[in-house]
């Protein structure tokens, strides 16, 4: 690709210029005159992070397969690049054709985490576009957004023209194809608004009660839906999945072949948004997975293959699949990585074989330190599970154990925190028993993240811990975990508060995001750029308080801003789960019986419709019930 002199000059002065050149193997460059709609697909973080998201590759592939559509990419330029672009008056461009984003028909953002929201405004601004939808011109591109955070679109409702909620691979293509059928933006939004999964914020006016809670959503367009039903892909096995992923030139966070094995999760952890919003479980067949994996490796030349799902071992054909993949990867000199395995004897056999003498750390996510609290959050793992797995691991030669917990969970007491230390201590003792008092180079890492209540989960009403409380808990844990061979990590507290504000925000939170961005906030997910003082100032100026959005317990009577989106699971189910949590009652995995979330009223759910179709999991995970 020939490059213009202005850009060339800039590229000579920035770090990692290959972030901005495109041209990677398998990227798709189309002649703009031969397509009917052009989309600029934006990831609101740096290239290395964005290129590691499989979802982006999935949509890029679906869209570019369609001869009528050109999908081009843009990422958030790093601050050094941004500065030079602004200095030289250069607008944000797509990597495929160096076309200014402003010339695209549709510009889409993927919403993966709240702390990337300021980058969205910044990218719009760098593209020469107004950030507020009302101030943009008829000729400006239509701005869309999708991804997990679109399940609460309200904090971005003032900036985005249209949200796509739910599975995107069919919906986004439909939406783009409608573009040519509409002669104005209004007509376009009206047409798209008829599709399941499309939320057009300008179709609704939100009024608030005096206490700041939502009073009502008033429809400004008569045929706008009362609630926007999320889009659901019925058959994952038949859905398009990339077999020729873009291969970045530079080191991305993950740069490997990836196949999504299933979507959804049957476990029903009460804190987990993904486990709720991606119901029901939909699998790709083993043979489809193997086929895609082999094609990807052939077309990319990757040296590593990984599988993507919420819980790798839960695939109904997992053991056969893992065994076959191991054979295929070995024959091709490809490393296989299997994340989030349930650690039973089969997994150990697999891990031992694929990791060989280079064993990476073994990861456990008990999430909470006592059985009582694990029952509250419905995390079905017992200490016996962990200890017997640790024993096997140590005997097989693993030397690093990583443990993940959350603090600030509903119903948590200091005893639960002590439980975290007890688990670490017990694991250390197991190692002493096996390896002797010196214990070898054995290390335990305990990572604790601050609980952020998320929309559409049973904990969506829960108050978040205040920073003082988090700090006290971290101090307590630090004391308790002062043990030889144990490392303790925890999350930045101020970021967690902000995440909670935005995650459960309403439209008023939009002005906070805009204010913070105007004050200079961006790359808030990066510790080195995040500026909590600016956010605090922006909160003061906009009147958005943590008290209201983060620390407050919501009542069942309250209209929650994100309920404009219908996740297709019943609110009553969420309430029931929240009540059961208060009594530390567990709800079994869907594979042991339908928990009645309501999903099967809308789409076919394996476990909810035909019980017993899949082998019921009688493993010891549920033994404590």
């Amino acid at each position, binding site marked *: 690709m020939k490059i213009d002199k202005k850009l060339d*000059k800039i590229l*000579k002065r920035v770090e990692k210029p290959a972030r901005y050149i*495109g*041209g990677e193997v398998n990227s798709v460059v189309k002649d703009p005159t031969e397509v009917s709609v052009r989309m600029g697909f934006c990831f609101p973080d740096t290239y290395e992070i964005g290129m590691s998201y499989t979802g982006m590759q999935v949509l890029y592939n679906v869209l570019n397969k369609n001869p009528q559509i050109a999908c081009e990419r843009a990422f958030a330029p790093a601050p050094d690049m941004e500065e030079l672009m602004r200095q030289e008056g250069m607008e944000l461009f797509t990597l495929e054709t160096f076309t200014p984003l402003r010339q695209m028909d549709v510009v889409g953002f993927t919403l993966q985490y709240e702390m990337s929201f300021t980058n969205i405004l910044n990218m719009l601004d760098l593209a020469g576009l107004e950030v507020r939808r009302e101030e943009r011109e008829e000729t400006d591109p239509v701005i869309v957004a999708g991804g997990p955070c679109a399940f609460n679109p309200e904090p971005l409702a003032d900036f985005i023209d249209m949200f796509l909620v739910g599975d995107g691979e069919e919906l986004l293509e439909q939406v783009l194809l409608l573009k040519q059928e509409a002669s104005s933006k209004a007509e376009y939004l009206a047409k798209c608004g008829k599709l399941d999964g499309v939320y057009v914020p300008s179709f609704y006016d939100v009024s608030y009660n005096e206490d700041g809670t939502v009073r009502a959503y008033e429809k400004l367009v008569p045929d706008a839906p009362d609630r926007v039903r999320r889009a659901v892909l019925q058959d994952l096995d038949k859905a398009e999945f990339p077999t020729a992923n873009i291969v970045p030139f530079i080191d991305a966070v993950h740069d490997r072949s990836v196949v999504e094995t299933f979507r959804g999760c049957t476990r029903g952890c009460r804190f987990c948004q993904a486990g709720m919003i991606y119901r029901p479980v939909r699998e790709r067949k083993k043979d489809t997975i193997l086929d895609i994996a082999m094609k990807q490796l052939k077309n990319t030349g990757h040296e590593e293959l990984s599988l993507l799902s919420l819980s790798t071992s839960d695939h109904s054909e997992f053991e056969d699949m893992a065994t076959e993949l191991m054979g295929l990867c070995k024959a091709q000199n490809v490393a296989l990585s299997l994340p989030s395995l349930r650690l039973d004897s089969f997994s150990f056999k697999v891990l031992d074989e694929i990791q060989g003498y280079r064993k990476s750390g073994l990861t456990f996510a008990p999430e909470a330190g006592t059985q009582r609290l694990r029952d509250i959050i419905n995390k079905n793992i017992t200490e016996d599970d962990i200890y017997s797995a640790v024993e096997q691991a140590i005997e097989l030669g693993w030397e690093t154990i990583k443990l993940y917990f959350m603090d600030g969970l509903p119903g948590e007491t200091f005893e639960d925190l002590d439980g975290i230390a007890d688990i670490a201590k017990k694991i250390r003792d197991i190692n002493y028993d096996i390896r002797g008092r010196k214990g070898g180079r054995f290390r335990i890492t305990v990572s604790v993240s601050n609980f952020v209540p998320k929309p559409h989960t049973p904990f969506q009403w829960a108050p978040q811990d205040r920073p003082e409380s988090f700090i006290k808990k971290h101090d307590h844990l630090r004391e308790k975990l002062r043990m030889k061979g144990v490392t303790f990590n925890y999350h930045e507290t101020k970021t967690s508060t902000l995440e909670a504000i935005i995650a459960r925000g309403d439209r008023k939170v939009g002005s906070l995001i805009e204010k913070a961005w105007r004050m200079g906030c961006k790359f808030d997910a990066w510790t080195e750029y995040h500026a909590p003082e600016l956010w605090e100032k922006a909160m003061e100026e906009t009147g958005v308080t943590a008290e209201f959005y983060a620390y407050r317990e919501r009542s069942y009577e309250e209209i929650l801003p994100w309920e404009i989106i219908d996740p297709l699971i019943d609110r009553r189910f969420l309430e029931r789960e929240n009540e059961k949590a208060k009594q530390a009652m567990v709800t079994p995995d869907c594979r042991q019986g339908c928990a009645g979330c309501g999903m099967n009223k809308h789409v076919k759910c394996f476990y909810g419709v035909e019980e017993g179709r899949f082998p019921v999991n009688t493993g010891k995970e549920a033994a404590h019930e």
Partner: protein
Amino acid sequence: MSKYVIEFSKTGTICYTSHLDVMRMFKRAFKRAGIALSYSQGFNPHPKMGFAQPLSLGYEAEEEFIEFETPDDREPAELLEALRITMPEGIDLKKCERQRKERKTLSSMTCAAIYEAVIPLHGKKCDVDGQIGSYLAQDRIVTLKKQKKKKELKEVDIKPMIRQITGAVADDELVLEMLMDQGSTSNLSPELILSTFMTFAGIDTDRSEVRVKRKKILFTEDPFQ
């Protein structure tokens, strides 16, 4: 087991990829093309593949070389074709030839390289030949160079490593052609010639406007033999 050398060029935006990026890119291209590479023995086996000389990020190149070893024996033309179709834009593979098994590595045979730098003058007059003459007539050409290990700056005299410089002005641009030591025994970065020469000649064009290209790598023996 067979050894091959491929000559290629690197032009356009892909010049913003680093030496390591290009290395990884080639490794993957071999995989895509279905060409197995031989691996070294030992705990950390790595594919037997290497470049004559690393190319700095931002430089284009006309004549680069990569050598590799495969367990199979295939016709060079066939290898070239299989690889060609899977290369990203900007990397053009020119020829492939079999190499003698017992020969030294390309990098140990590299002794010098020719670089071309295009420097916009922005209307400034420049007596090229005169400037080059007096630049080279200095007793020593001293500049600061980053030490590999300590990362400290150290004074070096680069003059003994400069073999030849010629220049011409056309279209308000100064084109310098520089021949210098490169390789494992003596190695000079063209950046050091550029910066010292531009200071010497009073050319204040910003470095970001200068385009550099490696035109040729010189070897102690013919790389295609």
